[in-house]
């Protein structure tokens, strides 16, 4: 009932209401300590990624064979790797790669997934059936195997790894989108809009998407962490990025040859990955709590 009123009243009132909703969510998000910690961690990462050029004391690909495998010291805070490169600088530059992988892979899968989910949910019928069976197919294949097959087919490299990770997480978004569409499309405000002559695309983008955003955002935030981990796994199998790109997963998997004698080669990239994934998970959980109206109090 409330929502119908929104629509029938002036659009201005609607936007005020929306703004206050965002405010309310933000307020609740801020109250959640974990979420704030997560956000600070994320901001730190973004900061590192943007200013890597300035902060990094060394060139991340500059080799120095004489000083290879050196433990952390004042000259090299995180020590040097198997080719004498400064691990601290590589980690800083690596944050760019990891954030890119996370964002692009998730962006790709959420856009494709949402589009498919919207089509399936809105039109229903045969189309719905076909799309949902396709997601069933993708869900039924373990994602790591799907990733490996896709990268094997396309060749190694950052771009193909992102595509692979993106494809394997399409079904999740598709399902979320479809589910919320199904529950929304029968509601009165959608009917009202349709009666007013709005096109299908308009209805989906202006009325349904905003209302199903909450679970999508939560899913996307959590999936960024997952994408970073998947990328690391691909490096382990030897299907990751092309060297000398300072990708954390690749650093970690190269470092395992030196696991015992130079543990800093694995410790720092490993912790960097943990840090990033942890930050995204904290954020995701915080957002979920903040966006869930049932948990208002």
């Amino acid at each position: 009932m409330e929502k119908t009123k929104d629509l029938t009243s002036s659009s201005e009132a609607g936007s005020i209401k929306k703004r206050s909703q965002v405010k309310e969510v933000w307020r609740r998000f801020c109250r959640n300590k974990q979420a704030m910690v997560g956000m600070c961690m994320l901001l730190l990462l973004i900061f590192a990624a943007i200013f890597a050029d300035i902060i990094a004391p060394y060139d991340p690909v500059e080799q120095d064979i004489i000083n290879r495998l050196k433990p952390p010291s004042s000259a090299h805070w995180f020590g040097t790797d198997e080719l004498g490169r400064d691990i601290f600088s590589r980690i800083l530059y690596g944050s760019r790669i990891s954030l890119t992988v996370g964002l692009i892979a998730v962006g790709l899968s959420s856009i494709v997934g949402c589009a498919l989910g919207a089509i399936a949910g809105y039109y229903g019928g045969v189309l719905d059936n076909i799309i949902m069976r396709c997601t069933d197919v993708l869900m039924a294949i373990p994602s790591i195997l799907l990733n490996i097959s896709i990268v094997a087919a396309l060749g190694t490299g950052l771009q193909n790894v992102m595509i692979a990770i993106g494809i394997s997480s399409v079904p999740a978004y598709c399902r979320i989108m479809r589910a919320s569409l199904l529950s929304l499309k029968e509601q009165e405000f959608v009917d009202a809009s349709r009666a007013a002559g709005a096109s299908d695309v308009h209805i989906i983008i202006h009325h349904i998407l905003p209302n199903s955003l909450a679970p999508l955002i939560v899913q996307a935030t959590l999936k960024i962490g997952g994408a970073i981990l998947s990328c690391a796994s691909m490096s382990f199998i030897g299907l990751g990025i092309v060297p000398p790109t300072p990708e954390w997963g690749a650093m970690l998997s190269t470092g395992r040859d030196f696991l015992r004698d130079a543990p800093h080669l694995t410790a720092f990239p490993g912790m960097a990955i943990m840090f990033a994934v942890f930050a995204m998970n904290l954020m995701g959980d915080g957002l979920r709590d903040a966006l869930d109206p049932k948990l208002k109090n």
Partner: protein
Amino acid sequence: MLKYIGRRLLMMIPVMLGVILIVFTLMYITPGDPVDTLLGDDATPEMAEQLREELGLNGTYIERLGKYLVNLAHGDLGICYSTKQPVMDRIIQTFPNSLKLAGCSVLLSVAIGLTLGIVSAVKQYSLFDNIAMTLAMIGNAMPNFWQGLLLMLLFALHWKILPASGFDGWTYMILPAITIGTSSAAAVARMTRSSMLEVIRQDYITTAEAKGQTELKIIIFHALKNALIPVITTIGIQFGHLLGGAVLTESIFAVPGVGKMMVDAIKARNYPVVQGGVLMVALTFSLVNLAVDILYAFVDPRIRSQYK
């Protein structure tokens, strides 16, 4: 109910066909010739051509796919290129190992996840909630292979209380199960917590509280039962994915599982094994999901009424 199950089983057929189509196509477009890997370095071009003919690799895409599907309809998954055993035999050798491992890891993650989830829901925002969820999330955030190696160093080398690698009894299962279990425990914990939080706020819980039942009783008999549904889904999905997806853990701990077999097969372009393996894993995954849905019906009478 039976009708519902029947319909679901029927629906699996197109899904399985889709799985085959995707895997077959991916393998087809992947560069690389199985013959090169099979023959090694000393082979002559004639040997290669002959073997290619033997393996039926000279046909077109449609011919090969058609042949595979016809064989499949007869229950024949083909012959492994490298060992020359029927693919079914290879799956039978590895599948139980993965099943055991997945079972153990799921048990572990449920034990950890449910406990953490329940306690932190009941004591939301308490110190325990914060610590428990943080720990669960750290387990989830650690790259699996790194965690596995560190566990191995600690338990097998440093304390010498568990075997490092292999699959020769239940003690060998502990480390890999912890490696996988901790990462999925977080998912279970998170799911339990949020669905518990939802349930706790509902009227019947308040009623029960008003009736003066103890907190523990309420949690177990009222809240947990109703919060279980989404948790079961999570567990189902985890289990399904662990079957073929524990590739890195299987490799680190030298567990002869189906995931490792398939990755080796992808690398060697051993098409029948890849196709057969993925098909079996996908089938199991779908069956587990069906089982989960049926389980819902037992947990929740309202859902049961929908399965007509």
